[in-house]
């Protein structure tokens, strides 16, 4: 068997440093936004007591979900023993950690009391799925870190059983992690948008799609740096096929989610709101999630086998992912709680009314900075250590 070669970036091109600089700038802006929110209170955001989780959470959950999926290629190589994916396993692992750190950073910086992170890390309520997720996230970083070690260490990497074992643990862990993330919403029994187990597999399907889309885009970007193709034609075709399957999975679970709600009479109001009458939300669903985020990239992948088409499809999948998270998180809260079923209600607190929400600039800056944190970590990692495969033409 031919030995798989890896490399680290050793060029100092303006393109590379420009990208790092851009991400660093966005991170500074995000940190400034967090400081501004922390100093003035969340009154400066678009969030309220009706929409308590806003744009930062859209980005944070999106990144956390994508992190789990970014491990796809490593899992396929180690767990399912597909050697052609092996060159991408290291990048897959570090990208998974980077995306998770980006998402968690946004979550923490949006807390009402981010200074109490140590409380969250030391005081647990084990009945809380949120608490479980703290373990799942930190455990994921540790396990994938160990997985990367056994893949990259000169001695450990010579023991295939080690890679397979850690790869297997990481694979199971990521499935549990994304189940936990979906359950953060699925376990909320009082809200019409949530209270359903299907959110967990929906999040898993979404993670596969977003994670692979991120991985492909990083590979494409890094190919500029390595001046060599990091994906052969065979791998382009494989990635294309995987994206197709993952997108169809997202469509399946999304349809299942809405059909389940549409079947239950008590959810008709919510579905009408989300899919037809809810102003911005039906637009985000039909145009953002379904049109731009799923149908268009699938059509592109179907009709074109070009690399550019693959990249474009990945960008569109990620835009669709953000739309999907916006709908689940913001749309799910905007629809009023049904405290008095069957009655019309009103109050000074917005009972019975759709809660308005307009994302503020600080929220947006904080959310986007999560993506930049992930990309900065990845960019630095590939420079410091051999995470990237050698170009296929070398």
């Amino acid at each position, binding site marked *: 068997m031919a030995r798989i070669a890896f490399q680290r970036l050793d060029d100092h091109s303006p393109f590379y440093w420009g990208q790092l600089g851009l991400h660093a700038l966005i991170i500074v802006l995000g940190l400034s936004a967090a400081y501004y929110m922390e100093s003035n209170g969340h*009154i400066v955001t678009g969030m309220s*007591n009706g929409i308590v989780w806003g744009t930062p959470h859209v980005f944070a959950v999106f990144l956390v979900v994508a992190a789990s999926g970014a491990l796809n290629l490593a899992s396929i190589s180690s767990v399912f023993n597909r050697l052609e994916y092996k060159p991408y396993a290291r990048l897959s692992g570090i990208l998974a950690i980077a995306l998770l750190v980006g998402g968690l950073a946004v979550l923490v910086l949006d807390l009402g009391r981010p200074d*109490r992170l140590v409380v969250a890390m030391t005081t647990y309520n084990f009945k809380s799925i949120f608490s479980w997720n703290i373990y799942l996230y930190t455990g994921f970083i540790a396990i994938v870190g160990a997985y990367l070690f056994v893949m990259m260490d000169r001695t450990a990497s010579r023991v295939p059983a080690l890679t397979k074992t850690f790869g297997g643990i990481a694979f199971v862990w990521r499935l549990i992690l994304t189940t936990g993330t979906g359950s953060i919403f699925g376990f909320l029994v009082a809200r019409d948008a949530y209270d359903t187990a299907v959110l967990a597999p929906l999040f898993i399907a979404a993670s596969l799609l977003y994670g692979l889309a991120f991985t492909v885009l990083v590979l494409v970007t890094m190919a500029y740096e390595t001046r060599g193709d990091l994906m052969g034609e065979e791998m382009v075709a494989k990635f294309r096929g995987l994206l197709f399957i993952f997108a169809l999975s997202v469509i399946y679970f999304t349809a299942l989610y809405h059909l389940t709600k549409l079947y239950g009479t008590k959810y008709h109001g919510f579905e009408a709101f989300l899919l037809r009458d809810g102003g911005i939300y039906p637009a985000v669903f039909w145009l953002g999630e379904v049109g731009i985020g799923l149908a268009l990239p699938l059509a592109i992948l179907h009709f074109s086998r070009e690399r550019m088409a693959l990249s474009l499809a990945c960008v569109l999948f990620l835009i669709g992912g953000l739309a999907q998270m916006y709908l689940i998180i913001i749309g799910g809260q905007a629809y009023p709680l049904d405290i008095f079923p069957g*009655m*019309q209600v009103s109050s000074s607190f917005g009972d019975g009314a759709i809660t308005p929400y307009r994302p503020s600039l600080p929220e947006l800056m904080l959310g986007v900075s999560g993506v930049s944190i992930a990309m900065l970590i990845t960019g630095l990692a590939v420079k410091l250590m051999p995470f990237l495969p050698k170009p296929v033409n070398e």
Partner: protein
Amino acid sequence: MSCCGKNDKSGCCSGEKSSAFGEPSPLDTARRWFLKSAAAFTTVALAPGVTLMAFAGAAPASAGPGRGPATAKERWGLLIDVAKCADDCSACVSACSKENGWKDTGHPLTDPQWIRKVTVSGKGATASLPVMCQHCASPPCVDVCPTGASFKRADGIVLVDKHLCIGCRYCVMACPYKARSFVHEPLEDQLAHAPRGKGTVESCTLCVHRVDEGRQPACVEACAATGHGAMIFGDLNDPESAISRRIAQFPTHQLRADLGCDPGVRYGTGS
């Protein structure tokens, strides 16, 4: 054992009692639409002339200064007589605001509202009733809180430990009653007995500082002072307490009882 325990099947708290107390007035019948399904309420009749007001002035059965640590012997609760709650009265809201120091700053969506008047209408009638933390026996806010900042005292009062709250707002997401508020703005002039904090979550404490002194919550006192007497506070575990006797005698209802949270706040029509 309380007749109102979580697993109680006796029906004493279900509001589905059928009695021979006489026919309800048309207004009462209309108001009950808000509380229970029509089928349940058509079986309900109430004693004429018996009002919650008569009980509202009574101190809780076990009230007394310096009660000591909370124990499971008591379960504090509220009974709200919707028929007596005047549409144009918000004395309970004002009293709570004054007692606990939360204020209306003109931002209704971000200002804390520990208690609010909700106008409920349908089936040709309208009613106004206060909604606050329902002090559930199985509170979802406590279940979901990652740090245990949301907790339930042994006596059933649901509180937030302001030192443990990290401001994640998951409890706000989980509360079925929209009873929790996140403090969006810096605070000034806090009250010693009601500590609050920017970036943390808060809700009705059932005036725990008063309860521990053997006094009634501010909202209940204010309601009695207006003469409406629409609120009774007391020990749900004590069958001889005013609130328990009322619940045993007349139909009451828990908001979203289908969720199984077993709120300590009951709604009914008692006149």
